[in-house]
């Protein structure tokens, strides 16, 4: 027996592993272009959030139809990977269906379950293709998805369909060969779904069937490895990043904005308040707010890589609903695309962040961030707890504090607040006038 297939398998596996290692290192470096932020508190709550939101898909179920189809693909992904484990052991050992003799009937039941899930994935992916390309569901066909994002989405669905066909073809031919008593092939006690397509192959010779069966086997395993590499270039990264992304969720009330400590020191000094921190010389502050990806927190950039562009945020955004340019999904895509641009430049020995471009200006415009009502609808809607609002507000800080470039009416509001301690221009001494009339009214 030739060990050539085993050697080829080993080589394919090693190459895929190496590429994946390089890709993961690249993504990690890009994410850590962001500022440090410590989110390691409340570990119990973090595990719970991850289990409920990522593993349990709790927030997906705000929209039942897509949630159900997505759940089928998700369950299939996890369970069919058990079969991939057998593929890998078979591939390394040169065996065929190594678990079958040990598990007996259980093996047949498991295979039938995998086949059922394969069909479920097929149906769901076709339904998703129809939603995107025929029904053209609004959030899945908006302008920010033109080009690569739309192609990426369709490619993922088509790859999954093809991989599922490979499994079914493999099982169908495998069982015909087993029935014919061809060496190595193990007869199971009936596979329902692949049995349905067996008639296509019945008339073929043993040699042709072995070729098709082997081809489908290799296609499936190499396909999965190739897909794993593809995922690292794709919005589909959410299948892995959803887990850390939810673990590092913001656990504070959604309305709370992060305090800028560097500003607090200055304010305390101005108001003559003695604190331990303010007696220190002020630390060198790189920049107030965020102009580029490296001004954001690493969590913001991880959020961007976790985004699968489902657009539930944008579909709930009051600004977007009423025709403003702001789309929270596009904010996330902008952050990722800029991090990618910087990362690729760095890897090519280029200028990286110093390329004369920036997130704000070259990707996201002021008009977009100025349209936000900070209503948290996008944050609430995200099935994996991405926080576009945090990024928008950090960019506003840059505009207001570094550029004094806020809209004129906001600058007027700032001025009112500085002089009258109210966003409106009223005399501070009139603040209590509302009570004048009441103080003289008879209490009922």
């Amino acid at each position, binding site marked *: 027996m030739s060990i050539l297939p085993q050697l080829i398998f080993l080589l394919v596996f090693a190459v895929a592993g190496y590429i994946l290692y390089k890709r993961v290192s690249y993504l990690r470096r890009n994410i850590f272009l962001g500022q440090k932020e410590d989110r390691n508190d409340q570990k119990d709550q973090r595990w719970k959030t991850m289990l409920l939101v990522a593993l349990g898909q709790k927030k997906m179920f705000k929209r039942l139809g897509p949630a159900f189809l997505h759940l089928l693909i998700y369950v299939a992904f996890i369970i069919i990977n058990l079969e991939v484990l057998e593929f890998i052991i078979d591939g390394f050992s040169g065996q065929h269906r190594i678990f079958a003799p040990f598990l007996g009937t259980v093996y047949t039941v498991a295979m039938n379950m995998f086949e059922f899930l394969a069909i479920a994935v097929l149906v769901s992916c076709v339904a998703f293709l129809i939603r995107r390309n025929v029904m053209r569901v609004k959030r899945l066909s908006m302008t920010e998805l033109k080009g690569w994002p739309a192609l990426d989405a369709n490619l993922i669905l088509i790859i999954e369909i093809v991989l599922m066909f490979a499994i079914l073809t493999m099982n169908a031919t495998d069982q015909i060969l087993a029935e014919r008593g061809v060496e190595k092939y193990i007869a199971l006690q009936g596979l329902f779904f692949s049995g349905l397509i067996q008639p296509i192959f019945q008339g073929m010779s043993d040699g042709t069937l072995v070729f098709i069966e082997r081809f489908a086997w290799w296609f499936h395993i190499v396909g999965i490895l190739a897909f794993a590499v593809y995922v690292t270039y794709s919005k589909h990264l959410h299948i892995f990043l959803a887990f850390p992304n939810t673990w590092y969720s913001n656990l504070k009330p959604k309305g709370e904005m992060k305090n800028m400590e560097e500003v607090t020191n200055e304010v305390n000094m101005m108001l003559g308040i003695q604190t331990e921190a303010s007696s220190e010389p002020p630390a060198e502050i790189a920049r107030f*707010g965020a102009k580029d990806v490296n001004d954001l927190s690493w969590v913001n950039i991880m959020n961007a890589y976790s985004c699968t562009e489902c657009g539930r945020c944008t579909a709930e955004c009051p600004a977007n609903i009423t025709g403003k340019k702001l789309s929270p999904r596009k904010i996330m895509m902008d952050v990722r695309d800029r991090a990618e641009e910087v990362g690729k430049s760095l890897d090519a020995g280029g200028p990286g962040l110093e390329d004369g471009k920036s997130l704000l200006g070259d990707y996201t415009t002021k008009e977009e961030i100025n349209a936000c009502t*900070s*209503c948290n609808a996008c944050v609430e809607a995200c099935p994996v707890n991405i926080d576009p609002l945090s990024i928008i507000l950090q960019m506003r800080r840059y505009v207001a504090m570094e550029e004094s470039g806020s809209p004129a009416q906001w600058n007027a509001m700032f001025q009112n*607040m500085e002089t009258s301690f109210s966003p409106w221009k009223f005399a501070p001494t009139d603040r209590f006038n509302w009570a004048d009339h009441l103080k003289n009214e008879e209490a009922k």
Partner: protein
Amino acid sequence: MSTYKIPTMAEMASSGENPEILFWVGCAGSFDDRYKAVTQAFVKILNKVGVSFAVLGPEEACTGDPARRAGNEFLFQMQAVANIQVMNGYNVKKVVTACPHCFNTIKNEYPALGGNYEVIHHSQFLQQLINEGKVALQGGGEFKGKKITFHDSCFLGRANDVYEAPRDVIKALDVELVEMKRCKTKGLCCGAGGAQMFKEPENGKKDINIERTEEALSTGASAIAVGCPFCLTMMTDGVKNKEREHDVKVYDLAEMIAKDMGI
């Protein structure tokens, strides 16, 4: 004649008293003609129930919320630190406010700057008064049996997960509470949050308050209840824009309770 008592913290302090709660009025509650009526209604309720309270009066300043959300962190912190100094000076323990923006800022953002208080929104305070039987509702007032819808304020709802308190207050009035399709966690903003109140909206197809008002009107409600000064302005403008001000009113929760109490 006994008149309404509205003591300031300064007056209380000079007579050696420390009230149970500070009623944080807010800028809209102090200066906005329409929202002043809400402030007055709430003060009447506090008087009627006999709650020990005081206001800061001229010593109050904007919490800084719109400055912070518009990006001016420096201005926000100047406002916040000054307010905290005043409140800590009076040894304030508990704050009640009718403004969800003030509520969110004082509750969630002042602690990082040294201001630690128990902060509740007036909807929660009214809910407690009703539950404790301290507010005697007539139940036969002008709202009885009427269809009323509640518009969630983002800074009360999603920002702080307060959804039931305002609804409990409305239900106590023996009305038919009708929900809009987008309510609670899915509630649509009125369009004024994030400092939008203080500027014209960006270019678009429609104003957000019109979108929201259309949804509120489609419930067939005869009144839209709100718990936020900005929402009150936006929804009132929306109803006027739709030329429905003759048959659809926009009220704050405190006004509805005060009306029902006959004060």
